């Protein structure tokens, strides 16, 4: 085990753990935001640069500070490393800059976006964004396209985190989905439109941190914060059948995987509980599910309103004594 100090809190972690995961073991607001890293997807991370942290001491053996800010999601901890996240002004300064970069080409159409309320970019913008924009140019625009008959892609909203690309690579049996072009004109696309058609392709919706990939069976039906999330399970031959159904009265409006507070699908019995397309898109009938109980949604955003709350800051307080 190696010891690492993050924002004056000491934590012991397995060697090879990344700074971000070490911070997640502490929890609370010590955790840097991550827009592209997704622990369940191999190779993800390092791209969005919102998780940049300052390393004030590299390790016990070599206590020199690192000159640049490092991406906490892809930098492994060393014994005796001292990391500054919320205690570093430089980190906040650069995180604000990254937030600005992510938002300059974003349409900010939250009022009509289905992701609003559970959008990580909204949270990030709320915490680190500026009031106004300094961007006076024309935003890049794309037309929304259908990829498959159940998924809508709004490239305008995309922040190119590559999560869906990894999902498509690692979960579905054939790769039909990737990034085309370069630079700020890069876009997520399928080689031939409507080509995504396999059992687990719907998971690209769950991994998307913004509203770029949305569920066509739920589009414009309701705001997420009006719905009751319930843990539910069903007999399914393709997946574990453990999901969250979002209900209004007795009606199921949408089905998603069981996501934790970082927006990642939870592990159930040691396996990531990705759900199949049939559970996600077709089982909108209450009789097909066994409702297990209410789902606790604990995220620092609108969607946590009217939910069972666990105040994480209290827990951090216990650890630090502050």
């Amino acid at each position, binding site marked *: 085990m190696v010891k690492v100090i993050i924002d004056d809190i000491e934590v012991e972690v397995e060697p090879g753990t990344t700074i971000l995961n070490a911070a997640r073991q502490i929890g609370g607001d010590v955790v840097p935001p991550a827009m592209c890293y997704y622990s369940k997807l191999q190779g993800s991370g390092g*791209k969005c640069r*919102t998780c940049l942290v300052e390393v004030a001491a590299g390790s016990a053996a070599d206590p020199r500070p690192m000159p640049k800010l490092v991406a906490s999601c*892809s930098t492994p901890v060393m014994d005796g490393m001292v990391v500054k996240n919320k205690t570093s002004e430089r980190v906040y300064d650069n995180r604000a800059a990254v937030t600005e970069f992510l938002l300059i080409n974003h349409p900010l159409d939250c009022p009509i976006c289905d992701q609003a309320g559970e959008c990580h970019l909204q949270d990030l913008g709320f915490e680190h964004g500026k009031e106004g924009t300094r961007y006076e*140019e024309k935003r890049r625009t794309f037309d929304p396209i259908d990829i498959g008959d159940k998924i809508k892609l709004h490239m305008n909203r995309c922040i190119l985190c590559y999560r869906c690309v990894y999902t498509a690579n690692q979960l579905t049996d054939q790769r039909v989905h990737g*990034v085309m072009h370069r630079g700020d004109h890069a876009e997520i696309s399928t080689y031939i439109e409507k080509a995504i058609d396999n059992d687990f392709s719907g998971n690209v919706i769950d991994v998307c941190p913004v509203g770029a990939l949305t569920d066509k069976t739920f589009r414009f039906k309701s705001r997420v914060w009006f719905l009751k999330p319930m843990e539910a399970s069903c007999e399914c031959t393709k997946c574990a059948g453990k999901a969250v159904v979002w209900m209004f009265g007795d009606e199921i409006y949408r089905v998603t995987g069981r996501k934790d507070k970082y927006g990642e699908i939870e592990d159930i019995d040691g396996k990531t509980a990705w759900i199949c397309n049939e559970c996600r898109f077709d089982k909108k009938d209450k009789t097909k599910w066994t409702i297990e109980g209410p789902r606790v949604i604990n995220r620092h955003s609108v969607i946590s309103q009217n939910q069972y709350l666990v105040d994480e800051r209290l827990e951090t307080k216990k650890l630090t004594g502050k």
Partner: protein
Amino acid sequence: MGRKLLLEHANVPGIESFEVYRKNGGYRSVEKALKTMSPQNVVEEVQASGLRGRGGAGFPTGMKWSFLAKPEGVPRYLLCNADESEPGTFKDRYLMEKIPHLLIEGMIVSSYALGCNQSYIYIRGEYMWVLEIVEKAIAEAYANGFLGKNILGSGYDLDLAICPGGGAYICGEETALIESLEGKRGNPRIKPPFPAVKGLWGCPTVVNNVESIAAVVPIVNDGGAEYAKIGIGKSTGTKLISACGNLVKPGVYEIELGLSVEEFIYSDEWCGGIANGKKIKACVPGGSSVPILPANLITKTAEGTDRLMTYESLAEGGFATGSMLGSGGFIVFDEDQCIVRNTWNFARFYAHESCGQCSPCREGTGWMEKVLRRLEYGQGHMHDIDLLAEINKKIEGNTICPLGDAAAWPVAAAIRHFREEFEWHVTHPDEAVKRNFGIASNHMPLV
């Protein structure tokens, strides 16, 4: 005239063929290395020579080689980075076009030193005719027993293959080059792990510039100590400089490091001064990604000492008053050239070539390009200049690979040294659109 180590025989007729090259002393280093030296000896010679990577960063080649992990039973790879796409740099193209066998000779010796049995030359997609020249040279080397199984009876096997790129600047970044070579999208990898540990197909890999590999040939022939005698301090040996812009004699020159910048620009032996009797306005001494220098800082440093063509002297004064030798793309601007337009041109290049993987570079380069275009066409505001400075400060150092830095530095330096010119564009919008550009406008008339 200084000593020439690489381009000594470049103008011998027919040097691109194996026979002529061999007659002019070619492949001596292969014979010497394979017959009389151990791989470790070759590495030591390169370390002793003080050769620094010629691709731009100037990292000592010998040290890079010594970092190569050597686990048992795992192949190692040497990749030659011929994806030369930096605006202003065209030295590798010249070298490969004129004396392709020098590169192949260097590849054989370097591969032998590193214990690689399969090496690759990654050539830029736009250099298709160069690829044909090098391909022909490789076939000749195979036919004459310098490549393939059991080279010169030494028991050492080496296969050399060429891989053409798809025309992306980013594939000159070593991990992006590896990705591209593996057949994937050329996105730089997140480091660590470094290629020396986990590179091509997960195996230890060294990536070197064409010129660095070619320079191994004279180092092995004459010894590292002899090579180290040329140059000043930590800048040893000779360097190819591709001079372009408003010069009387632009072209590729091989100089001994330590030549003064003044002599290089004005002496008839080299560039012969500024074309049409004009005055120099600015100079980018190492390819488009290094900071631009204003006239008063080109031949003299801020302290008043002579500036020399070395890694250290060009960097003297840091980014405030210095620049970098970079890859040797020496671009000179005369008094008629517009710095704003030129900076916009560079920014446009980087915005086009950013891979789009990490957000500061993807969004930042595009943003800078748009702001600079507005400034250039007289639609800018005073606060845009500060905005630009702010944007490039936030890109620099926050990206996965150095492309972000390379995009930020030229803009930062242009604003630092030529702020009045940016302000003039804001205060004189009409004149900014109408003014004369000199030759730089020919390819792109104003709208």
